[in-house]
């Protein structure tokens, strides 16, 4: 029995990838705000009517908003939530918290990272700089430790956070499931190390020999459970350098009413595959 995912036959459809997630699971999502988020995957969770999903991400926006809007997410750990790019607050997320439909564990981005690092490093908690004087410490009951080596410094420690799945939207994968990301990887790397499994949606299946530049791979295949290929899957967000934010599409998403949501989901790039798939 392998401790990893030794198979080199990992490609599945988007629907099969999302079907791996049971109700009640916790998902660490990659990307940041409207940039390179696993948004096709998130919409597939809605199509499959998942429930009671926990979202773990330092800076979610569109993803957590649409999951609140569709009744998929019930719990969240995050640092800052907004649509960003001039769209302001994430309205359905905001309402879900205000009405008590979403149970929030509010973090600083770096305290969430500290929790992920604890899980990645295999220790029960992880020190995190700063946090002194913040009410976040009180509401989360974070403990402050004296330096056992006698410097006199006090450091807050954050309990380990291990998502059931890290879900990453990647620029490309090779056939075996090695993962490449163009531009910044945000928190995807630590997310992949902290999670029990990594699910990947990639823009393309690359024919490039990744072994020629192995340093460009941020997740090796043996950590990846399965991957799916979805061109433009980070829509309506960006995926550098292939495409930018589709601002009119985000505008359309923000219209009130269930019809607007249905229209938005049907307009998504992966919906085409669904209809003809």
């Amino acid at each position, binding site marked *: 029995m392998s401790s990893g995912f030794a198979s080199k036959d990992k490609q599945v459809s988007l629907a099969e990838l999302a079907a791996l997630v049971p109700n009640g699971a916790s998902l660490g999502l990659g990307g940041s705000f409207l940039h390179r988020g696993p948004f096709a995957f998130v919409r597939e969770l809605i199509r499959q009517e998942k429930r009671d999903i926990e979202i773990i991400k330092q800076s979610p926006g569109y993803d957590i908003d649409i999951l609140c809007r569709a009744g998929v997410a019930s719990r969240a750990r995050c640092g800052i939530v907004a649509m960003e790019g001039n769209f302001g607050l994430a309205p359905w997320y905001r309402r879900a918290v205000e009405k008590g439909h979403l149970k929030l564990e509010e973090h600083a981005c770096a305290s969430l990272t500290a929790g992920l690092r604890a899980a990645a490093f295999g220790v029960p908690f992880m020190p995190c700089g700063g946090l002194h004087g913040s*009410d976040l410490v009180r509401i989360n009951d974070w403990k402050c430790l004296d330096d056992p080596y006698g410097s006199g410094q006090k450091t807050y420690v954050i309990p380990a956070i291990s998502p059931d799945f890290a879900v990453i939207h990647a620029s490309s994968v090779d056939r075996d499931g090695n993962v490449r990301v163009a531009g910044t990887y945000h*928190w995807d790397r630590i997310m992949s190390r902290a999670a029990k499994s990594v699910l990947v949606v990639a823009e393309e299946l690359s024919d490039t020999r990744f072994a020629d530049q192995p340093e460009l791979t941020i997740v090796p295949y043996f950590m990846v459970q399965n991957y799916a290929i979805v061109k433009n899957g980070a829509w309506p967000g960006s995926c550098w350098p292939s495409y930018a934010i589709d601002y009119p599409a985000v505008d359309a998403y923000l219209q009130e009413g269930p019809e607007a949501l249905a229209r938005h989901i049907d307009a998504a790039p992966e919906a085409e595959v669904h209809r003809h798939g």
Partner: protein
Amino acid sequence: MAEQWSGFSYIVTNLARFIRPDEITFSGVNSTPPMLACLLAKRAYDWDFVYINVAGGVDPSPSSIPISSSDPLLAEGSASIFANEDFYDLCTRGRMDLTFLGAAQLDGAGCANNSCIGEWAHPKVRLPGGGGGAVMLPTARRACTWRTEHSKRTLVAKLDFVTSWGGMHGVVTPIAVFVKRDGKLALQSWHPESSLDEVRERTGFTFDASDAGPTAPPTSREREALESLDPHGQFERDAAVRLR
């Protein structure tokens, strides 16, 4: 009468004036004015500084100016990717010279609430959250912020929730620039079309105003730099900043 200085230009220009030569300076998510301030400072001043940002960029040369302040365009032309974990770690180890952070409410000590209006557990309004603030504000050498609304509900005597403690070094609003002095925000200057009385009238906390006077108007280079960043006035329109 001198040409009017818009609230938008006032905020961006005065944020840029907090940047100092050679210092490592960071702009983050949801932070269009500081992004513009950093890009303005690169164009308007004779000296250089190290500009890092949330898109992983280090002294980038973006081919266009993005609406989103975390857009990957902000890493274009960068020779390295200095990713999210990197800039937080840089900050907590004490080597972030200046960071810009957002705030919904500020108190007289420059602490910030980004979390909620009302009680945290049962909020009247759920706000975005502090992002980097709780970790960066107490550990950065200096942190500066802005508010597009100068009022007694944004500049308060007591915060509904202390998301980030440690005190901003500088705060810019459409009508005033505050700087930390002896652990409290003191008025440094006011918008030339405003007054000390108006700033007092519209501020919820008390502050020292000795040595304060009207803000020096934008230099021609500051003005030209901002015009080059926002040639069609799109950022200015989107920000919709009003003096009153």
